[in-house]
């Protein structure tokens, strides 16, 4: 009985042990676990051989082989026989290499076996989904690799989520298949890029074993992508590229450095523009934006490099070619979507891009090239989805800098293609926006920035700079093409950003210095104030008798009300401007034009004394009508005189307010108010001297001097306004070749070396001078033809000034 009892307990305990062990055994027997163990054993083979322990290496080789034969081979042989055959070859190659003590061949074989495992698992996951077996698919999908997890990007989880949804019955098989397909293709293309970069890195360091290992992996990853590559490039291209990979493996083993570099170059060329997984919607929109921008840039660059059918600047033609290649690559990435919109039009774009290539190669007429580009743009407007087209146009400095910041990230991930794409995108934005203006306002700076984007800057930086070999900063295009170290690329980007800041200063030079704004506003306020004082003084002086003096009060009240009204006008104008601020620089251009109009009126007024004297005479006439023969002031007279005082002063105030708004937009309220205060102090002094101290001032000379100063203000303002209009694109920019004006001339005089800027300033000066000459001519004619009138007029003018002077 006891024996039976013991036996039963022992049996139960044994069962218990087995049952406990079952989950563990099951977990360690998953395809992923087996594959990982084999991979680790093969690494042990490699490391032991490397460290000279061949016995341990042989043991590990045997373990790896046994585990494969017992676990994965039966499945692979049945479901993915081609891959199983390849793995068998890999094991044989590895085993032979171990026996021969050939670490390099072993490294390549190891990479091949592992990537075959990944290939098999991908195919088996797909087969399982097709067989409606989500659980098995999920199990196979554990045997995979991911894109590198960095601070800025994490591996995506589309495939995992899709399979889970499929298992749960929430997702369709085709969705799961698409997610697996895209996720794995994307991951293995990233791994291919990384392995090739690592191989190059090892090559530079002379680490042959590591180089062979990475080459083996790269060839394996390419093998996983092979069918997609053939779909996109054709079987012949696949065959050719596969041969190059095989050659790369051979030279990695033979140690032929020259052939390695040659084959690596061929591999990189064969992979250029290849994108295994389709782009996301966001990425497609971005590529569409690039296509739209780059197509325009092709003809812009080309035009700069061609004169009379001859290439005069190779670099510009090279840039045009680069943009055409980038346009074509962007088009290829979105061509399937565009074909869905209109297959014929999409095909026409492809034809036109090819035509542009031929046009560049045959040094065609720039206008013909531009016509091709324009045709493409017309078609793109029809077939590129509207929301994608909205991505294209901005040229904000921050956007350019943020795109530049993507370059080091891409380089860090060895994605030099991505880095080049970001470089071109940043340059495209620059070229379509800021660079156009820089070429006009600071050609040297434009050349420097262009150099930094392409083959090298024009200004010397570090003595040990490489690239152009002449001690200048190497350009980004050169650095990316030569796969320069990250530190060097970051260094050029840092210099580029500093240069941007300087460029921005030049762009801001259209904004005058605070000092010039203060002095301009002070001049205007003083001048307008002086006119107001003179008018007021003239009116008051003419009311000398005791009876007439009672009429002075309403005029003064009117003048004071004009001050208040001027303040209210300022407030209203400012409030209006605030609502229009979203117009940005365009508002500045509009208001500047109004200010110029005001200035032109003032100057014209000044030279055509007849207007001014007529204006004054008008006031006097109104005054006479109001006061003549009246002993006691009536309410109507009172109102009339208040209005007289008001209108005589408010006109000056209104002009000043209009003019000041331009300065407020340019330099801000506080700066302008400083100038206003200064001008008002001057006016107050004149007012005190005139009205309180009743002293005589050289009013005529003061009017002349302030008039000349306003002429100066006018010219500065015309220069700045043209600059602003060029910035907002309302005027073209044609630089005056060979003329480089210093920054301060822009800030103080509004002088910029563009034909438009200088031309309009000359025109404004001509207008003012012409106005003066014409006024003089008119006066002379009047004097000669109507001496009596002239005499009367002169007498009238004399009344104006002398009345003020006599009052004083």
């Amino acid at each position: 009985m006891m024996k039976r009892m013991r036996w039963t307990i022992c049996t139960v305990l044994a069962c218990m042990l087995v049952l406990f062990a079952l989950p563990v055994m099951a977990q360690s027997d998953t395809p992923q676990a087996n594959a990982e163990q084999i991979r680790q054993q093969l690494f042990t083979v490699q490391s032991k051989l490397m460290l000279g322990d061949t016995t341990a290496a042989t043991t590990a080789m045997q373990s790896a082989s046994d585990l494969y034969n017992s676990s994965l081979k039966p499945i692979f042989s049945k479901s993915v026989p081609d891959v199983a055959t390849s793995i068998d070859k890999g094991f044989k190659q590895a085993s032979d290499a171990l026996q021969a003590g050939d670490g390099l061949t072993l490294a390549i074989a190891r990479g091949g076996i592992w990537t075959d495992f990944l290939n098999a698992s991908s195919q088996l996951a797909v087969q399982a989904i097709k067989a409606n077996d989500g659980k098995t698919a999920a199990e196979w999908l554990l045997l995979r690799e991911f894109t590198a997890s960095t601070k800025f990007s994490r591996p995506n989880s589309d495939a995992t989520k899709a399979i889970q949804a499929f298992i749960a019955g929430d997702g369709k098989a085709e969705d799961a298949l698409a997610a697996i397909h895209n996720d794995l293709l994307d991951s293995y293309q990233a791994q291919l890029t990384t392995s090739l970069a690592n191989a190059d890195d090892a090559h530079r360091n002379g680490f042959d074993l590591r180089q062979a290992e990475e080459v083996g992996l790269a060839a394996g990853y390419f093998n996983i992508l092979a069918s997609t590559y053939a779909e996109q490039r054709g079987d012949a291209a696949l065959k050719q590229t596969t041969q190059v990979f095989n050659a790369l493996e051979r030279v990695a083993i033979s140690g032929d450095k020259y052939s390695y570099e040659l084959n690596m170059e061929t591999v990189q060329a064969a992979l250029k523009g290849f994108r295994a997984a389709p782009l996301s919607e966001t990425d497609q929109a971005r590529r569409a934006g690039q296509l739209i921008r780059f197509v325009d840039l092709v003809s812009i660059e080309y035009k700069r490099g061609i004169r009379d059918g001859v290439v005069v600047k190779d670099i510009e033609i090279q840039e045009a070619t680069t943009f055409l290649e980038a346009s074509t690559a962007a088009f290829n990435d979105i061509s399937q979507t565009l074909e869905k919109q209109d297959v014929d039009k999409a095909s026409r774009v492809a034809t036109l891009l090819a035509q542009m290539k031929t046009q560049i190669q045959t040094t065609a007429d720039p206008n013909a090239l531009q016509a091709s580009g324009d045709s493409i743009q017309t078609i793109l407007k029809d077939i590129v989805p509207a929301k994608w087209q909205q991505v294209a146009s901005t040229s904000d400095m921050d956007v350019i800098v943020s795109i530049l910041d993507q370059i080091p990230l891409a380089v860090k991930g060895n994605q030099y293609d991505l880095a080049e794409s970001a470089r071109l995108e940043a340059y495209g934005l620059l070229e379509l926006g800021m660079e156009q203006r820089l070429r006009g306002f600071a050609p040297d700076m434009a050349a420097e920035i262009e150099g930094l984007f392409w083959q090298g800057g024009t200004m010397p930086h570090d003595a040990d700079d490489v690239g152009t070999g002449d001690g200048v900063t190497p350009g980004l295009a050169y650095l990316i093409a030569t796969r320069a170290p990250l530190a060097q690329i970051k260094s050029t980007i840092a210099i580029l950003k500093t240069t941007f800041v300087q460029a921005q200063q030049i762009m801001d030079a259209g904004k005058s210095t605070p000092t010039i704004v203060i002095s301009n506003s002070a001049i205007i306020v003083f001048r307008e104030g002086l006119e107001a004082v003179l008018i007021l003084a003239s009116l008051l002086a003419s009311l000398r008798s005791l009876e007439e003096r009672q009429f002075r009060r309403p005029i003064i009240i009117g003048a004071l009300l004009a001050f208040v009204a001027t303040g209210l006008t300022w407030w209203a104008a400012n409030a209006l401007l605030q609502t229009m601020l979203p117009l940005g620089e365009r508002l500045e251009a509009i208001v500047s034009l109004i200010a110029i109009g005001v200035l032109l009126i003032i100057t014209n007024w000044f030279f055509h004394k007849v207007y001014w004297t007529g204006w004054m005479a008008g006031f006097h006439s109104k005054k006479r009508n109001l006061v003549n023969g009246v002993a006691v002031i009536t309410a109507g007279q009172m109102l009339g005189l208040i209005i007289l005082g008001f209108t005589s002063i408010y006109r000056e105030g209104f002009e000043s307010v209009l003019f000041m708004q331009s300065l407020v937009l340019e330099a801000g309220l506080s700066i302008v108010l400083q100038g206003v205060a200064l001008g008002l102090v001057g006016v107050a002094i004149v007012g005190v001297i005139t009205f309180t101290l009743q002293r005589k001032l050289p009013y005529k000379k003061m009017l002349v001097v302030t008039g000349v100063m306003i002429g100066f203000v006018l010219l500065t303002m015309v220069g700045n306004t043209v600059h602003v209009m060029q910035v907002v694109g309302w005027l073209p920019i044609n630089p005056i070749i060979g003329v480089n004006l210093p920054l301060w001339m822009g800030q103080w005089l509004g002088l910029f070396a563009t034909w438009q800027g200088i031309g309009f300033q000359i025109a404004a000066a001509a207008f003012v001078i012409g106005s003066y000459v014409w006024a003089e001519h008119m006066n002379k004619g009047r004097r000669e033809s109507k001496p009596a009138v002239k005499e009367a007029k002169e007498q009238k003018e004399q009344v104006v000034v002398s009345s003020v002077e006599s009052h004083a």
Partner: protein
Amino acid sequence: MKSKVILLAVMLSVLILPFSRVFGADDKADLDAVKTYLLGKANDLADGSKLLTESTDAYYELAKAAKFDYAQLWKDKQKEVAVAIEAAKKQWIVISPFYEQMEGIVAGVPSLSNYDAIIDASPSGEEDPDNAVDFTVDLPSGDKLEKPGALFNVLESTLWGTEPKYVSDAKIDVDGDGKIGFGDELPDANILKGTADALASQAAELLKSATAWEPNESDAFTALVVMVPTMSEYFGSWKISRFVEGDDATGKNFSVISRLSDITGILSSLQVIYDGVSPLIEAKSPEQHEQINQGLVDLKAFVEDILKQENDGKRFKPEEADIFGTEAQDRAQTITGQITQAAALLDITIQE
């Protein structure tokens, strides 16, 4: 009868126990254990770095008394100086692993990661102006060290003289082994004291922040995703350290404690974090949990094996170090990939 009851109970247990793992799996994260672990190490570091300042203060007072004439200092106070420096070196060796054993958590948790830069990870402004942490060490002389890099690195360079500007010109047999060798330098007392004080201050602040930290699942997953795939960086610094390159080492740091030792410390802390969140993953996908867990175990064992060989006297060549680093990184990347998949399935956010 009694025996039959016992037998029945045993059989029932046998039937139930294996399934209890599945049905009874606790699907809640246990992050208290992570915090307890962190506080233990942070306490050790705070106490240890305070102790370090006793030696550095003593050395500073000696140097100050000698008016910072180091040749004279050595001549007059050889024994006291040697004792102070040796004590500081020993204490550095004690406290450095305290940090490494919690680095996975401190560096990986966004709210604590700035301490990692200041204490252990940042390059100096001279080495990498863009990525150096913006931090200043105030020296007793009134001078400042702007962007000096990680405090542990500055201290190591000062105590063992791997950075010439942090030590005096005098070449002196500090350890008394009869020859002028590695570490036979008299540190610049100003820099040594200023940096040790800064470390003590930062360690105290870290302890405060760690105490205030309320761990959550997002923090834990973020720490794993950020820190696991950093193997290549650590192996990279090992490759250029004295442990691989010997006297020709191009790296100024990690000359005293092998970087491999640091890696095992970091992996230990990452395992603590993973243990905290593993119930969540196990409940969702047992296979994925098994893969991640085993991956971390294997990765740590892989590094420990190399460290053991190194401790046994094996000196690896740079290319060998490179091969090991690549292998570790490949493994780490796969583990990280699976952690990100698990986080996605659990709808847990990985922070930027």
